């Protein structure tokens, strides 16, 4: 039907400029409000207060905060790894689980923290994980823990627990969605050949959902790399994460140079993480 074809093409032929005009406001918003400040931060990291090129900002950043940089890498990597493993476990049980009520319960429970803001998650954990918080109190009440030997988790462990609690539902939602849309025939074939569920998960399901898993993990890594509230609220002590150092450099010294040098380091770490994941594909459980 030529008439329909004409109609389909007509508006496109009429103006090449219209689609660009429709996209322009949104694109300009990102360019002006994100890409420009991003470039500004990259440049500021490499110049001194007089505008001369220097590496002094990085020298200061490493001199004062090298411990915190390492600490940040460990916390974020550990959290990402735990999120990956647990997301595979949840997605795997939702896909391969045979007990319908248990699957339904897990499906209903696991995503509660999905949209809970980091500040609220931090406040929950700040009280829950404290030495006399609800976690230790309930363990003592159940007789699983001696009242004298309780320890608080409000340090690096608390940050990792908060990050995993908050980010796991997001990655698990993506991963279980991808697993649900897989072709079931290979799974059924493997099952008929006598493969166990764990083996099916690791050897058949996970390799097929790896792209989704990696996207979720990289987005989580970036998100955790930019959270300010959790390290302040959950672990007040030193060492801390570089987001806290950036805020400190600016609020107390107006030192944009060192803050942006730390910012540059956070971009570099994210870039390195993305590159490692994409290149070696050691997503989740570290299985090839």
């Amino acid at each position, binding site marked *: 039907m030529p008439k329909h074809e004409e109609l389909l093409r007509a508006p*496109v032929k009429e103006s090449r400029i219209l*689609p660009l005009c429709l996209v322009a406001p949104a694109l300009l918003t990102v360019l002006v409000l994100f*890409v420009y400040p*991003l470039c500004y931060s990259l440049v500021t990291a490499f110049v001194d207060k007089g505008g001369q090129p220097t590496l002094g900002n990085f020298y200061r950043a490493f001199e004062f905060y090298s411990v915190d940089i390492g600490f940040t890498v460990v916390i974020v990597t550990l959290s990402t790894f735990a999120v990956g493993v647990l997301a595979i476990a949840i997605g795997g049980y939702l896909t391969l689980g045979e007990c319908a009520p248990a699957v339904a319960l897990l499906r209903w429970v696991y995503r509660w923290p999905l949209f809970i803001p980091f*500040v609220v998650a931090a406040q929950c954990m700040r009280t829950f994980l404290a030495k006399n918080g*609800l976690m230790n109190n309930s363990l003592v009440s159940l007789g699983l823990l001696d009242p004298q030997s309780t320890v608080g988790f409000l340090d690096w462990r608390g940050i990792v627990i908060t990050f995993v609690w908050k980010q796991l539902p997001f990655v698990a939602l993506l991963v279980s969605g991808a697993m649900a849309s897989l072709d079931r025939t290979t799974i059924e074939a493997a099952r008929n050949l006598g493969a166990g569920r764990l083996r099916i998960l690791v050897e058949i399901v996970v390799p097929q959902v790896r792209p989704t898993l990696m996207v979720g993990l990289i987005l989580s890594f970036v998100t955790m790399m930019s959270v300010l509230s959790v390290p302040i609220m959950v672990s007040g002590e030193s060492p801390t994460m570089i987001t806290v150092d950036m805020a400190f450099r600016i609020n107390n010294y107006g030192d944009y140079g060192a803050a942006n040098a730390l910012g540059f380091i956070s971009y570099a770490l994210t870039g390195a993480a993305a590159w490692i994941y994409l290149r070696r594909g050691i997503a989740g459980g570290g299985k090839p």
Partner: protein
Amino acid sequence: MTAALRWIPRAIVLGLVVYAIFGPLANLALWAFAEQWYYPHKLPVTYGLRFWHQVFKPRGDALESLSTSVIIALLTVALCLVIAVPAGYALARLRLPARALIMLAFLLPQAFPSLAVYINIARLFYGLGLNGTILGVVLVHTVHGLVFAVWITTAAFAAVDRDLELAARSIGASALRTFLTVTLPLAAPGITASAVFVFLESLDEFTGTYFVGVPDITTLPLLMFTASIAGNYQIAAITALILLIPSIGFMLVVERFLKADVMAKVGT
């Protein structure tokens, strides 16, 4: 009997999962209703609503922050939709050069650690007099929420059946009329979903507001943070509960908003 035995490990694991998810939330709820709670008491000594009265007293900080937060979130949604709906339509339906690159551009604010960018936005806004203004905060929230707005509206438009548009065109409707009376209403659920995403993202946003909003803009997350750092756990818990209501509400209904046909087209 064996079936019952198989439930034991399953029940233990599920119990741990439930405990891990709801334990921290239960602690928050307890703090919100605890009037006195000190060591070595494992549960609050006295319960009550005294702190709720304090939080909700007329002209109190919390109500003011709540209205600031809601105003900022609504303005962010409006601004996002105004720029994202045309962009989404063009990306879904019209021929664009470097379309994949444009789609990726909207992901940039989520693909870089944003804190370092926020401190520079704050510095640039300071020169423009935008620091500590509603507009400044709305702009920061908009750029962060834009990826949801653009990607979901694009998916929503892409999921609209082209034949229905063609039918409208062949009985003589103009391109604009077809868009307004056929395409837009059919894409409306997806656009609503993107609006809710942007609203929540703005309502919950902390870091950008922390840097750009100082010293005059106190949103609910900032108020909660300040109360928590000052050790006012009851106030912090009550404010946190207010923030939890929309988050959990949306989590429970998200699949009704985002239909599978739209979800399948997100990011494509």
